[in-house]
Each structure stands twice: as structure tokens, then as C-alpha cells.
């Protein structure tokens, strides 16, 4: 289905779920898609502040290898702007998700950002009030497309695992066509993605390069299947990773508003404050 090679998963989700699409799902899909395209990447670092202390694993997000080649859509830029000023900044996963959460402007704001690509214009009703309140309503073409996408994804969902084991070429073709929309598949066994034949992938890449000079969407997703380490180690499959992301997003709704402090060892009394810093030597 050609359309799915153009739409980001958040755009597809907006067609499928339109008025009921949750902004957390849209954010999550965008985040996963950027990881898939290697625009951003996850790194885990074990740190020990002192040999006597236990080491801790810190999960960071940093620029991926395709960061410079990516022209982010408005709904993707919430995740790319933090890296624009500093090349070597690493951002804790928790904070990175929160940056996105703050930048979305919650549900309506984020849906508006997703719409801004223009890819959905042909499928959505447009009126002054719908635009003003950021409401999403499908037109006739949109309803038709929604059915087509839904049916196509169901069909892919029912056969993708079988294809990954028995017809890898066909499976790869489908996966590359739907790009980041793989996250809308409910049955995909992410472990099987590791079986993708690298030679087959190289062949597909050379075919796509000869067709177009653009370092486009297609190539970005191909990079993932070449080194699909996203779902390895702690993020050993898409499901556990998504639940980690869900937990982090949910934690912002119930965040403990800590304003107290504790005292230990030498203790502390009260702070008399200071009148600003005049520097140091």
C-alpha cells in the first residue's frame, strides 16, 4: 500500500482513530518511528560515582546516525530540537520523553502538529470551527482510506510472522513499504526482525538508490533493519519497550510534587539564602 510508505505512524493513527486518537499514542508512535529511522538512538551507560557505591544503568537518548539527513515533520521536531544546539548532549530517557510531553501542547496541540505535514489534507474535513478547536473529522475520502488502511494492516498482521520465517523477501518488501507503521501491527514478533537477510537488504538498498537520489524515508527505515539493535538487551522486544515508554508517560500525570528535603549524616539546619553569585576563583 503506497500511502503507508508516505505516512508516519502518527499520521496513520490519526486517520484510523481520528477523534479518539490519544496524544500519548501519537507521541509514542513518533518516538518509536524516529528510533526506527535512527534519527535518535538509545544508549545505556553504566556509571559508578565511587568504587564503594553500586553502579547504576542510565538510559540516554542522543543523536542517531541519520539525524543530519532527517528533515523532521512538525510533530517529529519535538524530539529533534533538543539536539540542534549541542552535538554531544545526552538526555536521560525520562527527561527526553518529558520534553516531548511538554512540547506537544497536550492533545489538541499535538494533533494540529501531526496535521501540519499536509499529508492528511485530502482525508480530513476542513472548516473554520474544526480548525479553531483542532477537531479531527474524516471526509468521505478519509473514511474510505481508513477502511483500506485498516484492512491492509489486518492482512499484514495476519501473515507477517509467517512471512518472516518462510518468505523473507516478501516480508522485507512489506516492512519497508509500511515503514514506521510496523508499530501499528499488533501481532508482529519483533524478535523475528533479527532474521532479516542482510544480503537481501543490501540488494533492496541498491535498487532504491538507483531509483532516486534522495536519502529518503525508505533509506532511513532500511538502516534499522540493517542494524536492528533497538529491541535488543533491555528493550528486548517492541512490547516491553512500549510499556517502558507508557510507564514514563503515565508517571508525568501522577508525578509527586516533591518540595521537602531530608537530612542525614551531618544534618542541616535551615538555609539563610544568598544574594546571588559574584563568581568564584
Amino acid at each position, binding site marked *: 500500500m503506497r500511502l503507508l510508505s508516505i505516512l508516519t505512524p502518527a499520521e496513520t493513527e490519526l486517520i484510523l482513530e481520528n477523534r479518539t486518537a490519544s496524544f500519548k499514542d501519537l507521541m509514542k508512535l513518533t518516538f518509536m518511528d524516529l528510533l526506527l529511522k535512527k534519527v535518535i538512538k538509545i544508549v545505556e*551507560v553504566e556509571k559508578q*560515582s565511587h568504587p564503594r557505591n553500586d553502579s547504576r544503568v542510565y538510559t540516554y537518548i542522543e543523536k542517531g546516525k541519520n539525524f543530519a539527513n532527517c528533515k523532521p515533520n512538525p510533530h517529529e521536531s519535538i524530539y529533534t530540537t533538543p539536539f540542534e544546539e549541542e552535538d554531544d*548532549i545526552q538526555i536521560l530517557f525520562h*527527561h527526553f520523553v518529558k520534553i516531548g510531553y511538554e512540547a506537544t501542547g497536550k492533545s489538541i496541540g499535538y494533533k494540529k502538529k501531526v496535521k501540519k505535514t499536509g499529508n492528511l489534507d485530502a482525508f480530513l474535513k476542513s472548516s473554520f470551527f474544526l480548525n479553531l478547536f483542532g477537531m479531527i473529522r474524516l471526509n468521505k475520502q478519509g473514511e474510505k482510506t481508513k477502511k483500506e488502511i485498516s484492512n491492509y494492516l489486518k492482512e499484514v498482521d495476519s501473515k507477517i510472522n509467517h512471512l518472516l520465517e518462510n518468505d523473507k523477501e516478501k516480508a522485507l518488501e512489506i516492512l519497508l513499504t509500511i515503514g514506521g507503521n510496523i508499530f501499528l501491527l499488533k501481532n508482529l514478533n519483533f524478535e523475528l526482525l533479527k532474521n532479516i537477510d542482510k544480503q537481501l537488504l543490501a540488494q533492496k538498498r541498491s535498487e532504491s538508490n538507483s531509483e532516486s537520489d534522495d536519502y529518503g524515508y525508505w533509506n532511513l527505515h532500511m538502516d534499522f533493519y540493517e542494524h536492528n539493535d533497538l529491541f535488543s538487551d533491555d528493550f528486548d522486544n517492541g512490547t516491553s519497550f512500549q510499556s517502558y515508554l507508557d510507564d514514563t508517560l503515565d508517571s508525568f500525570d501522577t508525578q509527586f510534587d516533591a518540595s521537602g528535603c531530608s537530612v542525614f549524616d551531618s544534618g542541616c539546619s535551615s538555609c539563610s539564602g544568598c544574594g546571588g*553569585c*559574584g563568581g568564584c576563583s
Partner: protein
Amino acid sequence: MTEEQIVLWNKIRNFEIDDPTSSFTFTDRLARENNWTIEYAIKAVFEYKKFLFLILIADFPLTPSDQIDQVWHLHLLYTQSYWIDFCKNTIQKDIHHGPTKGAEQKPLFKDQYLKTLEFYESVFKKKPPKHIWVDVETRFKEIHFTRVNRHKNWIFPKLLLKCS
């Protein structure tokens, strides 16, 4: 940067102020107390690390921007992180914070701030980001801060009142 300085900068850059097991981290608190976005707070922490690095390699006194000073103040409250994890275990040196002694020191600090901006540029080979390292006039003009209980008070920007 010399090889030695690169090693030191990497140590400081990789130093983690935030506790990953905490749901309300240092950076979360910094953002909340200054009414900053989390993205801005993260950038301010990164610039704070650069400032600490500059202190360690400079042979003259330095003055931070107010934003960086706020990061420093808060870090000083996290005593375990500042004195033990950072000063003792990471850089093996104590960096003390020197509050101003009064308005008579203003010209001195203005000069130090300008020198800090120049030094930053010569070491990192880029200009300090203006949204964190503000110009010298703004740095020493916009310093009248007060702790306000926002549960009991509303805050209106002066500019807004002028327009209305």
C-alpha cells in the same frame, strides 16, 4: 583543549546529576523552581557543566550567568551529589561558590562575566548560547528575584500590564 583538558571535560560532561530512580529529579526541580521547560533546564545543566570545567582550567576568577548560577545553587543543595560525587569523586577538587558582597562589586563582576564569555568561546570554539549566557547588561540588570507562593498569588508580567 589539551589532551588533559579533554579528559577532564569528558569526566564533567558524563557526570550525572540526576538520579534515574527518582520520579522527581534534580532537573525536574530546577525546571519547576525557575518556571523553565525541561528542555531549557537540561540545556542550563549542560552549560553549568561547561562553566565548572572553565573554572577548573582558568587561572582567573569567573562569573556565571544567572541561569547557570541557579543550577549551581540547586546543585549545592544536593550535598551528596555536589561535594561527594562531583567534587571529591569526579574532579578531586572543591569548587566553592562565592556570593556577592554587595553592589560595590558590580563593576568587578561585570568585567569577570565578560572575560568568562570570551574564555568560553576560546575554549569551546563556539559562542555561548545567548538564551543561557545573556548579554552583560541583562545579566546585571534582571536580577530582582523573589520567592512567590503561587498557590496564593498570581504573577503578571510587567509588559502585559503596560499593554493593557
